[in-house]
């Protein structure tokens, strides 16, 4: 090998190493800057979240911790009461009735809402004629204040209301809908009607998160629409299932507003909810019982949410 050839070869090697070193240095600096930028972003993120976190802490977490404390003490004297408040609450027939009604309300209305909203969301997501209008229409009940809804229910379901008037036209005797067992069905209907739009929107968002390629691949492989729905769409919606179910559960507690506004402190037994009881306990200043009741219902909800989480989020 001539000298020139050797020099060329060495120069190439040097260049190669130079390139490598440059690459390494630039990678080092890139990583360094990325790390610096990330920490900075974390700090900004924390700063933005902090007010909300403080709010949650001040208005939810700390009060709830205080409620837990109060559940084990006599409120006025502060004396430790052990489990006696819980025993008192669990032995209270009104609590048992209210808890059973609340559980029944959740057990009936949440599945109806989740299933119905999914059934509506699927065609809407695929795009049907007038879908946008339909989606907007579904959201209107959310915009109507509870007091107005209640007025509407009273006009429809009162003894002298529209429904009885309509039935009368067909010779069917009417009834006092809100003061009989029908009150529960009306409340379920009211809840589903009010929350349907919101759940549909959530389902549509979740459906749009599923890559279209998967559906296309399945179709190419010869799968039918039902198979695609049950084998591909539903499994991909488990995470959304969790969110929507938890939100629906929380919203199911809010039907108390309607029940209270329609029928007051003592509605028909079938719609006597935990909030009615807590509301009435507060009138008697039974804070010990309220605290124990709140801890019990909180614990049940937590257990339920944990169960859903484990089942659908796999955590």
């Amino acid at each position, binding site marked *: 090998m001539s000298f020139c050839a050797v020099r060329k070869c060495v120069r190439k090697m040097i260049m190669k190493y130079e390139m490598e070193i440059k690459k390494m240095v630039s990678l080092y600096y890139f990583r360094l800057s990325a790390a610096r930028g990330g920490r900075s972003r974390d700090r900004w993120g924390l700063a933005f979240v902090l007010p909300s976190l403080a709010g949650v802490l001040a208005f939810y977490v700390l009060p709830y911790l205080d409620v837990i404390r109060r559940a084990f003490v006599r*409120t*006025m*004297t502060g004396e430790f009461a052990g489990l006696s408040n819980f025993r008192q609450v669990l032995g*209270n*027939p*009104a609590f048992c*009735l209210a808890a059973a009604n609340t559980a029944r309300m959740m057990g009936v209305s949440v599945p109806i809402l989740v299933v119905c909203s999914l059934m509506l969301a699927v065609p809407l997501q695929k795009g049907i004629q007038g879908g946008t209008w339909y989606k907007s229409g579904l959201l209107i009940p959310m915009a109507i204040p509870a007091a107005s809804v209640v007025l509407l229910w009273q006009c429809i379901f009162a003894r002298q209301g529209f429904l009885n008037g309509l039935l009368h036209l067909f010779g069917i005797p009417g009834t006092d809908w809100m003061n009989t067992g029908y009150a529960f069905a009306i409340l379920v209907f009211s809840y589903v009607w009010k929350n349907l739009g919101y759940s549909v929107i959530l389902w549509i968002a979740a459906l749009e998160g599923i890559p279209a390629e998967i559906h296309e691949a399945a179709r190419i492989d010869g799968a039918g629409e039902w198979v695609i729905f049950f084998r591909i769409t539903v499994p991909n919606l488990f995470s959304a299932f969790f969110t929507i179910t938890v939100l629906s559960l929380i919203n199911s507690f809010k039907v108390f507003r309607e029940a209270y506004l329609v029928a007051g*402190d*003592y509605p028909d*037994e079938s719609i*006597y909810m935990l909030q009615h*009881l807590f*509301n*009435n*306990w*507060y*009138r*008697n*200043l*039974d*804070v010990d019982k309220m605290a124990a009741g709140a801890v019990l219902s909180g614990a049940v909800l937590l257990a339920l949410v944990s169960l859903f989480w484990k089942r659908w989020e796999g955590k």
Partner: protein
Amino acid sequence: MVLLGIAVAMCSCTPRGGDGAQGKEIQEGKNSGDSDHAPSGEHVWNLTELPKPESAVRVTSLKYLSDGAVRISTGDAHFEHAAVMDSRDGGRSWEAADAATSPELEDEVIGKYYSAKGVPFAYSSMELILSADSGTEEKTVRMEEGETIFSADVSADTLAVLVLEEMQFHLKIYDLQTMECRYLEDPELSEFLARAADHAGGQISLDSQGNFLYIEGTGIGRYDLTQDRFGYLIGEELYDELINPNQENGLIHDLGIRDHFAVKDGEDQVLLSVSSPVSEQSKLYLLERGAPKEEKQVQKEKLRIYSLKESAIRQAATLFQEKYPELEVTFEIGCTGGNGVTLQDAIRTLNTELMAGEGPDILILDGLPADSYAKKGMLEDLTDLVEPDKENYFYNIISAYNGGERIYQMPLEFCVPVILGDADTVAVKNRRELMEVLRKKAGTGIPFMVSKNISEAALELFITSDIVGETINEVKLADYYRDLDTIADLCFSDGERDLFPVGDKMAYWAEQYPGVGFCPELDLYFGEAQAGITRIEALWDYMKILPLCREKGLSYQYLNRENGNYFIAVSVLGISSGGKNPDAAKQFLRFYLSGETYGDGAYPYFPVIRELAAGSRYVSEEGESVGGTSRKHTPDQTMDMYKLTPAELKDFTAFLDGLDTPVKDDAVVMQKVMEQAEACLFKGKDPESAAADACREVNLYLSE
């Protein structure tokens, strides 16, 4: 940011035309009234209470004389022993007046009246006599047919008479020289008089020359008799503020019933005589125009009294404030019914305050969850405050109300549900026996009880029954409804159920509880019923029962006495253990129990203070007549009533001493049960379903 700053600055600099102007207007009104002659500037009307002459209880007339002196006539509590007094220092001290005797007149209006020159006059509803003066003769003025003299005044040669004709005020002005009469027909004056009639006004006063006529009503109106022009000396709003000095604290803010007034020449002083319906005494006030009083901003200790609904304690609070001006007493009503706040809302708001340690010092526990408060230690133990003087009170009531244990709830008043009738009727001890007697006495031609008595009977029978325990006993409730139906069957005439007025039905009376009910004594007295169920709420009620016992051989007894001798506690007071001023709260209770807050026997319910009954105006050695009572206001349908003799009072006190069981009068339970009772009696609902419906609603409430 700069733009925002400029905008804020501009907003804050914008002249507040509306508010500012309005504020100024009010201030001017307050300062000068609406007087044409009022000095402008910083003068305001100041209110001062003046001393009364010793021995004067009532002020029956007042007048500024031409020489600037003030002349009043006074009397004792019964408007007797009249005296005429003069003051030469604007009402600050008094001396017996050297006044001529006023003329005598049949049925004359109480009071010794004098003209500005000191000439006495008197008037009745139909005529007025002005005594003779040097150079003048006695003059008599008679009203036209249908006219009634409401008030009158004389100054110089002017006689002003306010007459009432067909419920409307008119003003007549007489020239005493010529005796010519003219009516004042100014439209503004007429409007003012119409409003004065609606607001218990209508007193008149002349200046010493007889040129200006002043009328008290909504404000003090001034009529210029020389120019026939109406205006205001003190405007309505300002006058309202002046005579309602405690408006902000919820106390009874009226100075009292305005009886007489007089305006001094120059219009810088107005004398007012008012009488308190509580103490039944007159007070004198001076409204004086002058520089605003500089009130020292002293930080007063506060005493908050809370009542869910209107309560007689408000009156006591007002008197307590008068007696202890170093305290700032406020009386709060949770549910006034006027602002959409329900009873439940009010209770929750109160509970929030109590939980936050910001609650009132004194709670009037009527309608509040008092047992729950007591159980949770929210009420002070009052045993040591009440027990040492227990012989002064109906301690059986206090003790029974607290279950014979420590006293946390102090019932201040009470009443007794009773049954009236013959020996058979009053011997019954429970509803079953009552029904037997009722069936036995049916068909005698006289109803067992009058139909209008049924709602009160239903209510009293329920609250004195054993139907309510931990929850309602459905079987017993159905029996109760069945019995009510039987009573109605036997006491109502044909078709009467259909025409029964809503205001006489059970649900209405449950809502009004413990408001007054029906008064069956008259029906028994005039033989229109054989029995009656009612309440003895005060001595006056007992005086209605006495003629039945004396003249008709009837009697009275505790109602449903099988399980105890029931009483209804009213105005139950509790002192909040979390209150800011427990000492003042106890001081208030002591003040109340001293009996100072009660007038001379005119109280709606029996106070727990024993000596009040003994010292009442309704008790005398002779037991003389106190008039009569009637529902038809005809002499043949009037039942004469007599005072109690000490022996009768002793018997009755022993009856009250026998009370040992508080009724079960939970408002929610009563309301629901009575609604169903009404449905049963008047809508044909069967007793079993009515009882089932009532239990479904009420037992949930009771089991909470």
